[in-house]
């Protein structure tokens, strides 16, 4: 083990030991950070699920082309490719009756039993058309008009005003989440800064001693930065635990309610990766707050 690693190990131990010296301050800091992160986590979870619900409703599909019964597969494929070749179209997806049934079952969630006895053939084959983001608004209507003239097309559904209102709502939620993220960042950094500043004052003599015995800037400051990071991780972990508890208590009720709108399967909690990201975010905020405090209050 190199000397640098040994010094790092020692610094880490000092950071943890330092936290134990002021348990009340640390607890208050962690809980306050947890409340902030909980707020952000709640809005993020709402946003993720709202996006899931919107996806489930298919409002992100501008155009859905329902084909006649018993259309040969090659004809359906040919039409799909012709539509996809249009410059205003981003991509298309041919949805077979089997996939449509599967989606319907997912959407009904626990209420999927109502589909028992429903034959796959009862559902139509459809083509989902995704337009380019920059394509003109009137393009979808014009394309729908042209497609209705095609012999194998039964019906064309275009996303209406309600869907764009839903997307506007989603946009507003994204803005709220973004603003909240900024506020939470600022609040968490301020909390850590304040706690670490207090810790530096409380352990002023320790800092003085470490300077005297030849501690480098990094060696003297690192325990406080580690303290900040631990505060952030604990705050995030506590917030996510609370959120998970709340989510799993509410999820069955939500599922039942959403199954009425055929989007029951859309509700989910954070993935492991997202949880790790949240912990990392907490640690980062703690490190930033602590670094600002030590840069200002720990002299070498």
């Amino acid at each position: 083990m190199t000397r640098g690693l040994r010094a790092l190990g020692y610094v880490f131990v000092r950071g943890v030991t330092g936290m134990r010296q002021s348990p009340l301050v640390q607890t208050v800091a962690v809980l306050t950070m947890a409340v902030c992160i909980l707020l952000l986590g709640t809005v993020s979870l709402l946003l993720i699920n709202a996006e899931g619900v919107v996806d489930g409703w298919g409002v992100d599909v501008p155009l859905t082309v329902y084909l006649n019964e018993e259309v040969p597969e090659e004809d359906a494929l040919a039409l799909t490719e012709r539509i996809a070749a249009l410059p205003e179209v981003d991509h298309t997806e041919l949805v077979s009756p089997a996939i449509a049934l599967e989606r319907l079952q997912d959407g009904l969630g626990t209420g999927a039993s109502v589909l028992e006895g429903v034959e796959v053939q009862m559902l139509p084959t459809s083509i989902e058309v995704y337009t380019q983001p920059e394509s003109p608004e009137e393009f979808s209507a014009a394309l729908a008009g042209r497609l209705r003239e095609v012999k194998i097309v039964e019906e064309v559904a275009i996303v209406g005003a309600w869907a764009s209102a839903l997307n506007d709502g989603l946009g507003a939620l994204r803005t709220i989440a973004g603003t909240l993220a900024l506020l939470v960042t600022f609040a968490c950094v301020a909390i850590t800064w304040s706690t670490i500043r207090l810790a530096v004052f409380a352990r002023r003599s320790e800092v003085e001693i470490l300077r005297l015995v030849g501690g480098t800037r990094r060696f003297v400051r690192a325990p406080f930065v580690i303290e900040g990071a631990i505060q952030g991780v604990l705050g995030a972990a506590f917030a996510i635990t609370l959120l998970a508890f709340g989510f799993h208590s509410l999820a069955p009720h939500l599922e039942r309610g959403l199954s009425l709108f055929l989007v029951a399967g859309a509700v989910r909690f954070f993935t492991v990766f997202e949880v790790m990201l949240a912990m990392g975010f907490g640690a980062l905020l703690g490190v930033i707050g602590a670094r600002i405090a030590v840069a200002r209050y720990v002299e070498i």
Partner: protein
Amino acid sequence: MSILELIDVRKTFAAREGAQVALDGVSMSVERGEFALLMGPSGAGKSTMLKLILALERPDEGSIKVADRDVHRLTADSVPFLRRNLGAVFQDFRLLSEATPQENVGLPLRVVGVGTNEVRERSREVLLRMHLDPDLKRPVKTLSGGEQQRVALARALVTDPPVLLADEPTGNLDPDLSRDILDHLVEIQSRGTTVMLATHDPVVPSYVPVTRILHLDHGLLVRNEVTPRLRAISDRHDAAAAAAEVA
């Protein structure tokens, strides 16, 4: 060959009634292996001089050299490396009060990333040299003043620095304990470490075989007296240098 050198050093502190002069154009040097006594009443500038040598303060003017390196021309990142070569003890001990003697003594070694076993061994060795129990598991705050000062001395010596700066190390101790600490300082100097002891106790020069007496008063160096012992030390160092050259 001088190990400590101050050239025309001036240091002032801002005060409500204007700038307070702590050191006013002080120049002096201390040879390697000396036992220099820095005397003067409280507020004469003794502690300021030691803090300047340790780069804990910056001079307004002049330069301070340790082993020919100008302390205040060092970058902020290099200052810790200077301090690792300067042991320091103070009147108020400056120990981690909740830590054991061994943890305190091992701190300078931890700073440079020495392994746990070596830290334990070297701390034990130097604590025994200071007549302290190396296996004591009590926090240092429960020890007597004399014991705490010996822990501080042990910490200052554990890295075997060429210079030891002592700022009123006996200031908080009764006469018997003070003599004990002074005996340790003499023993440390006899092993080749340069010792600079700041004190306002007039008894110390008669008790300690010093090589130089520096007397500060109101920031001015009013006396720089070399004792006959300095010649003996210089001769010893010259002989050692000659022997090294021949070898």
